[in-house]
């Protein structure tokens, strides 16, 4: 119970920071006042990429021992990206616990630790949108298309971006 209280305190602190010190291009906050363990997030598509202009929505799910273990980030909009699983879950090193590196190519400093934060996660995901990591394909078809048919990939990405703002 003490751990849960610590988690809630930490989440409230992070939320206050996010609201008081606006960071360009990201928003995150609890979906409902009653459940602080699930947040909705918005990530603006990075400029000068086909994602530009889109606002991509995702949910962040925290476990009871956050910030010891990382949250899970899952997109809730149509999106195509080599490092996003078909179910929307994001595969990025900052969301992997330090002890657990199935592929053995990530540095410990890139991975999750309690000094990371929601803001850093969202900024990392934003730069991941701009620069997909070819080495860890979560969506094989998207990886292939990104490599072999960049034009079609960018066209699909732009369609997704337009859709997010209802155009």
């Amino acid at each position, binding site marked *: 119970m003490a751990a849960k209280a610590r988690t809630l305190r930490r989440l409230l602190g992070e939320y206050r920071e996010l609201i008081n010190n606006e960071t360009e291009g990201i928003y995150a906050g609890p979906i*409902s006042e009653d459940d602080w363990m699930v947040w909705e997030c918005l990530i603006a598509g990075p400029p000068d990429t086909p994602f530009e202009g889109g*606002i991509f929505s995702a*949910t962040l799910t925290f476990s009871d021992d956050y910030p010891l273990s990382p949250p899970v980030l899952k997109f*809730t909009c149509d999106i*195509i990206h080599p490092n996003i699983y*078909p179910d929307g879950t994001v595969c990025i090193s900052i969301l992997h616990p330090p002890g657990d590196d199935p592929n053995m190519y990530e540095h410990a400093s890139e991975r999750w630790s309690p000094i990371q934060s929601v803001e850093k996660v969202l900024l990392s995901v934003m730069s991941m949108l701009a620069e997909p990591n070819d080495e860890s394909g979560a969506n094989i078809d998207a990886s292939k298309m990104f490599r072999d048919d960049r034009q079609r990939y960018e066209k699909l990405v732009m369609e997704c971006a337009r859709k997010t*703002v209802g155009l």
Partner: protein
Amino acid sequence: MSLASDDLAGSSSSSSLSSSINLPQFILCALVAALVYRYVISSPPSSIVTSPSHGRPTRPANAAVSADAIRALQSMFPQASIAAIRWELERNGGSLEIATEKILAEGSLPEPPLSPTRRAAQAPSPNPRSNSGGTTEGLVASASGSPVSKLGGHTDLISRYNLHSKLTSIQLGPSQPADTVFANKKNDKASLMLRGRERRDAMILQARRKMETMLRHP
């Protein structure tokens, strides 16, 4: 000769001594660990079962699933989300074996039902709890040939947050300066959330206008 055999006997007895200490100790440890584990995860199954109408597991069930078990499964199957693992453990009474077999058999775990708020935000689906296939809509989409993750519901944020009415109002950017300055000083949960929501809507509307101009002048 006798000395050597004495030595031999001595060393063998000492080795059997050390193993005779280790083995029972190990068994005892395993037993204690098993009992503690059973004690920790044992909770009435009726509280674990979630009612379909309610959607969310009850809190006691949440507390019963150990973080270690979730972490162990997550490290074995990174593709399964923590929420899905937690939900599976809650339903099967915390059994790692059952969860492991299920993931191996089906390739993934079904995601837990959405919270009431999120479900309300999404389009009504005829059968939100179809666990039979264990497939999400995203997987179906990829099977049908498109690499785009289709996640269904209102992916369009204007509809999701009911912003159509605000699209026509011209003012944008730092609106209501007096109110905002006043609100900035408050840090309690309610006013934080109020400001958060305002910011979310402003961000979406601003992006929508930007996209409209981008499409007009490609």
